């Protein structure tokens, strides 16, 4: 039951909101949050009852560990062992469900054994709810959490707008909003705002992302099946996929924020026009922002601080100091972030490519190398991004290599004798790619259009967007009509088998 399904839109969302509003009106906020927690579990159970059991084990264990950590902090006996045990327990569960078969593959390749894959189902959203809760444990250990009811904790860990694919929320930004609520669940203006954001997201997903999918699928599937590919087809398919993933994930993130708004819980921003980035570091500050924040906080910063401490203690010269404090930590962080997305060599290389690119970018700034100009910066960034996404999309490295060699004019160096050429409707694809590219690069994004409302849980920027009035969302008839049209159009075009790409991670 993804957000872009009729069950969700016609049944789950209206029923949940009705129950939520009624309970809030008659029984108060605390009970309304319990309703929302139960609804979130029902939402997840619709995916699979078995997987719900795994989610519940994770939630209960982390709630108990978090409570003990928080109490031992108050008793001034903060327990490092329990924190480390808790994190390892979470990572072990994640590793078992996600990476066991990858390890079996590696073992077979290295030692020549022939172990079969285990039949392990990947629980949807496990990477997300595991990391959200690891963040919670670290905060509890540092004495930054309070003892809360199990219902509230369950809602924090499994709130249906983000349990399957993020944003990766931090405990403070959710719990702070649950405390001392004074408003009413039934607030017309807030619901209108939430529905507007949701409508934009649904449109991006159903109309834009799903239209691009066939071009990318035909080309990548063809290459995986052994087909040859020419440069024009390879570039067209790669750009189609790049835009497909953009609208898929940006649409999903809008929908998540919109759903949160409807229930009065703001979520952190996850997407901020990443293709307008003019450096690869800038790109990661704009693409999947809450994931970047998590890995920066818990992997990059501790490593880089240790590295810099060592470099200073040993009085290293500038270059080794950079490698210790900025170069190696970012390559390692992006490698971990790559593998976090999924098991397989493609994710290893995806992470490495981005890690090396950011390290070069950081080094360039650190050593004041000559500036290249804004357009060159943007172009280089996008070439890394598109090449990275080719690896990301490919089911195996053979597919990625064939595609990338075709794109970069290196097909001649590939020894393999390739089969029938893969064909996609190039002109049809560009009829989508061109206008959508212009939208991505030239038009304001959802939060800019809604900048007067400030729709996320992040701190307000000091300088607000300078959009002209015509682009700014207003609760009036014109905008209502336009957004209703988007919603109806998207609603009537929902495909039967189109889930979100980030559900796989």
């Amino acid at each position, binding site marked *: 039951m993804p957000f872009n399904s009729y069950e969700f839109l016609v049944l789950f969302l209206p029923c949940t909101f009705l129950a939520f509003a009624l309970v809030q009106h008659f029984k108060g906020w605390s009970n309304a949050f319990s309703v929302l927690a139960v609804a979130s579990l029902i939402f997840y159970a619709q995916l699979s009852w078995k997987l719900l059991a795994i989610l519940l084990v994770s939630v209960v264990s982390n709630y108990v560990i978090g409570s003990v950590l928080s109490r031992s902090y108050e008793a001034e006996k903060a327990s490092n062992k329990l924190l480390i045990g808790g994190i390892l327990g979470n990572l072990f569960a994640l590793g078992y469900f996600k990476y066991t078969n990858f390890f079996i593959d590696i073992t077979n390749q290295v030692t020549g054994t022939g172990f079969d894959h285990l039949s392990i189902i990947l629980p949807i959203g496990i990477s997300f709810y595991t990391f959200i809760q690891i963040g919670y444990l670290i905060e509890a250990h540092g004495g930054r959490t309070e003892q809360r009811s199990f219902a509230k904790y369950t809602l924090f860990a499994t709130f249906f707008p983000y349990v399957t694919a993020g944003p990766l929320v931090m405990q403070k930004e959710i719990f702070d909003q649950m405390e001392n609520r004074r408003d009413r669940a039934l607030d017309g203006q807030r619901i209108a705002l939430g529905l507007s954001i949701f409508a934009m997201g649904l449109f991006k997903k159903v109309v834009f992302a799903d239209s691009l999918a066939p071009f990318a699928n035909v080309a990548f599937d063809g290459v995986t099946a052994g087909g040859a590919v020419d440069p024009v087809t390879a570039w067209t398919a790669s750009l189609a996929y790049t835009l497909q993933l953009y609208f898929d994930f940006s649409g999903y993130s809008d929908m998540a924020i919109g759903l949160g708004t409807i229930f009065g819980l703001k979520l952190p921003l996850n997407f901020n026009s990443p293709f307008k980035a003019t450096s690869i570091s800038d790109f990661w500050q704009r693409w999947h922002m809450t994931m970047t924040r998590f890995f920066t*906080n818990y992997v990059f910063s501790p490593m*880089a601080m240790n590295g*810099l401490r060592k470099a200073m203690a040993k009085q290293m*010269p*500038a270059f080794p*100091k950079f490698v210790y404090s900025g170069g190696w930590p970012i390559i390692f962080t992006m490698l971990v972030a790559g593998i976090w997305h999924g098991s397989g060599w493609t994710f290893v290389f995806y992470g490495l490519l981005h890690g090396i690119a950011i390290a070069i970018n950081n080094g360039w700034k650190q050593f004041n190398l000559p500036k290249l100009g804004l357009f060159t910066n943007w172009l280089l960034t996008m070439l890394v991004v598109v090449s990275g996404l080719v690896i990301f999309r490919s089911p195996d490295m053979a597919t990625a290599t064939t595609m990338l060699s075709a794109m970069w004019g290196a097909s001649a160096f590939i020894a393999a004798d390739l089969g029938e050429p893969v064909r996609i409707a190039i002109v049809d694809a560009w009829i989508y790619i061109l206008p959508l590219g212009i939208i991505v690069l030239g038009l304001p994004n959802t939060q800019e259009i809604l900048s007067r409302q400030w729709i996320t849980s992040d701190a307000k920027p000091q300088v607000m967007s300078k959009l002209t009035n015509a682009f700014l969302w207003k609760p009036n008839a014109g905008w209502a009509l336009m957004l209703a049209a988007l919603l109806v159009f998207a609603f009537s075009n929902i495909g039967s088998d189109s889930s979100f790409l980030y559900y796989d991670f």
Partner: protein
Amino acid sequence: MKLYDIIAGILNIEADTLNEQSNAMNTPNWDSLRHIEVILAVETAYNIRFAINEVVNMQNLGDMRAVLESKDISFDDAEPVRLSA
């Protein structure tokens, strides 16, 4: 030596352009790499070590001041710092 002077020194900007809301998002020259140097400079200046969750919760200079105060550190006592070898 005050906190703002230390940070301005690392970022190579004027100290009076900083305020309690300053952070990596709204201040020139302040990116994730410089952020590490800022934190290390403050650690060195006050002779302390921040825990991971303290670093995570320092969203701006006001937060950093609060963390320092929670460690009973008087603001004007910092020693001047040089990070480069």
